[in-house]
Structures are given as C-alpha cells and as structure tokens.
C-alpha cells in the first residue's frame, strides 16, 4: 500500500487529486517545449527529471505527412482574421508549421494576393493550398493544377463540395478527383466525411493522408461523431489522420488528439475568437496536451466508482481486524 501511495502522489507535494497531479508535469512540459512561455515555468517548477525525459520524447515524436517531418500537430487556416498583422501573430502563437491557403480570381488593381503571399512567405510556414468551393471534379482538378504552379508545391487539400448548406464533401467526386491528382503527382490531402468506405477508396486512389471533418466547416461544434472517428483511427492505424473542420474550442482539439488523431486543421475557431492570437496559443497547448495524453494511454472509463485513496487503514474503520 505504501508503494501504491508513492506511485500515485509525486513528491514533494502529495495530493488527494493524485491522477491530475501525476499527469500535470508531462502535459505542461510538452506544452512548454512547443507552445507557451507561461507553461515553461510551470513545467520546470515541478519535477525537473520527468520534464527533461518527456521533452526529449517530444522532440522525437514527429508527425510525418508525405515524407515531411513536422513538430507541430496543428495546421492553421489563414482566412477570416481581423487583420493581416493578427493573422501573422496567430500563426506564430499557434506554432503551426503548415498553413492552408487558397486562390481566388485576381481582382483588378487591388494586389491583395501579392501582399498576402508575401506575408505568408515571411512566416516560413509550409503552405497547403486548398480547392475550397469547388463543386465538380473538373473544377477541383484545374484549381489544384493552378495552385501547384502558384504556390510551387505538389501538396493539395482537396475539397469537392457536395452540399452547400453543410459544405459536406461529395464523396464520389472526391475519390475521382483524388485519383486523377495522385496520378498526376500530387500529394493529396482529402477533406472527407468520416466514412470508412470512402476512406478505403481514397487510400486506394493514392491518398497517404486522410482528413475527416469533425463537424461542418465553420460550425465550431467539435467532434460530432467521435464513434466514427475512433473507428477510422482503428481501421487505418498507419495512415496519418488529420481532423479537419468543425472544431470550436481547444478542448475539441485535445479530444481529437486523445483519440489518436495525428493532427488537427482549424481556422474559424482561431480567426473569429475575441483574441485570435491568444486562442492560437490555447489551441497549441490543447494539441500538445491531447497528444501527450494519447501517448500516456488514457484509462478506460467505467460505470461504477473505484476508490483512488487506499481503503485499507482508514481511521474509525470498525470492520477491520
């Protein structure tokens, strides 16, 4: 029993909330490594040895997308921010190494595209162009080809929208477009529903990353179908899975990472927050926490209570021998 108490309560401050304290140093430390100046202080103030070990583990916990190794598991969209300056600061606060971009019709004399493209290049982030708004295979394929030249990358976030109210992907058009683009040398990141059969066909078409939605784009509803997402994770253990769209709060991102998803892609939740820069930092912490928790193997939920404090030796225990 003494051994049990020691394991659950890290010295020098034993606490009744044993499980939370046990997890805290790892979470804050990994966060400090990648995210937020405040969390660095928290991590180093508590259990230095554990901190160093987990920091080393975090450095080797890389995300690999089409042979590109990344430290950050947060991909950030660049639309809908209050200003370009806030966008730039939000990208920095999020620690994202990949940002999504789009292409739109050149609007005469505005030169809006050039200023934006300069800003993105200054951040040093890798870009993932999208085919947002495309309704047909032809539109999506041509848009992807234009994006490849414009952004000088073979990466494409493939969107073929099938329903204008929910912006739900058209699974049939998506698979067709993915096959055409993969054959043409693209690295396709398909924006998809969490459908297992569609996922299988996308992998067959040549996709080496899958990006299921959590909820409709911009809805902020979080993981609408955690069961379906978990099934996808189990069915495709070796394919990088990125939850894309529908996240609203950092807790949603943490939940996705806890399920074993490799990364999250979000935009509106940061861009439309009251303070996008602070929210970008909050999401970075949540992603780090969720990943750390996944690697730490969360306990299995149960229906009935189980005492965390040892029962044996309780004072006033008249039943004990």
């Amino acid at each position, binding site marked *: 029993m003494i051994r049990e108490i020691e394991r659950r309560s890290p010295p020098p401050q034993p606490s009744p909330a044993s499980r939370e304290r046990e997890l805290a140093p790892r979470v804050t430390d990994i966060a400090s490594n990648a995210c937020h100046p405040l969390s660095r202080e928290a991590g180093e103030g508590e259990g230095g040895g554990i901190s160093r070990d987990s920091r080393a583990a975090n450095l080797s916990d890389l995300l690999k997308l089409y042979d590109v190794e990344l430290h950050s598991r947060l991909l950030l969209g660049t639309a809908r921010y209050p200003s370009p300056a806030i966008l730039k600061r939000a990208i920095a606060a999020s620690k994202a190494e990949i940002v999504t*971009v789009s292409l739109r019709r050149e609007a005469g004399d505005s030169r809006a595209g050039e200023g934006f493209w300069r800003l993105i290049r200054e951040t040093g982030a890798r870009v993932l162009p999208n085919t947002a708004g495309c309704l047909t295979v032809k539109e999506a394929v041509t848009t992807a080809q234009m994006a490849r030249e414009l952004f000088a990358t073979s990466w494409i976030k493939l969107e073929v929208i099938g329903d204008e109210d929910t912006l739900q992907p058209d699974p049939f058009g998506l698979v067709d477009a993915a096959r055409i683009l993969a054959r043409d040398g693209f690295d396709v990141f398909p924006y998809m529903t969490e459908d297992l059969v569609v996922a299988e066909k996308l992998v067959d078409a040549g996709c080496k990353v899958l990006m299921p939605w959590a909820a409709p784009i911009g809805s902020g509803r979080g993981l609408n179908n955690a069961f379906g997402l978990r099934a996808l994770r189990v069915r495709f253990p070796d394919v990088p899975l990125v939850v894309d769209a529908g996240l609203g709060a950092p807790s949603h991102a943490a939940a996705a990472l806890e399920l074993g998803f490799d990364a999250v892609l979000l935009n509106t939740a940061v861009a439309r927050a009251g303070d996008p820069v602070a929210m970008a930092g909050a999401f970075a912490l949540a992603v780090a926490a969720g990943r750390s928790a996944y690697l730490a193997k969360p306990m299995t939920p149960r229906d009935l209570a189980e005492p965390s404090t040892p029962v044996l030796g309780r004072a006033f225990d008249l039943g004990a021998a």
Partner: protein
Amino acid sequence: MRIEVNGKAREVRSPTLALLLEELGLGDRHVATALNQEFVRAKDRDEKRLHEGDAVEIVSPRQGG
C-alpha cells in the same frame, strides 16, 4: 473579340493569353491561369491563342481554410 475573364464578359484585342494579361495590367502579377476550365502553364501562355467566346480564369494567392 468578346471573351469572359473571371466570369465577366469583356471586349479584348489580345490574340494570346500572355498578351491578354499585359492588356489587363496583370503582366507582372503572380497569377495562375486557366482557359475554358483547362489549366494553362505560365510558360505556355505565349502560345495559347484566344478565340471568341473563350472563358479565361486568372487567380492569385488568397487566404484559405
């Protein structure tokens, strides 16, 4: 010659896609192009001839999610 540029009908005089970009003041812009929904590489614009009724798309980098 009457063609569509980014969804709007307009009268132009340029015989090729490259010259059209010049005519529209976009010759030095970082843009990508398509003609009748087919991608046209930057290096092919000189050769790509325009015809009455063609639909040209000219796009540039923009914010996206």
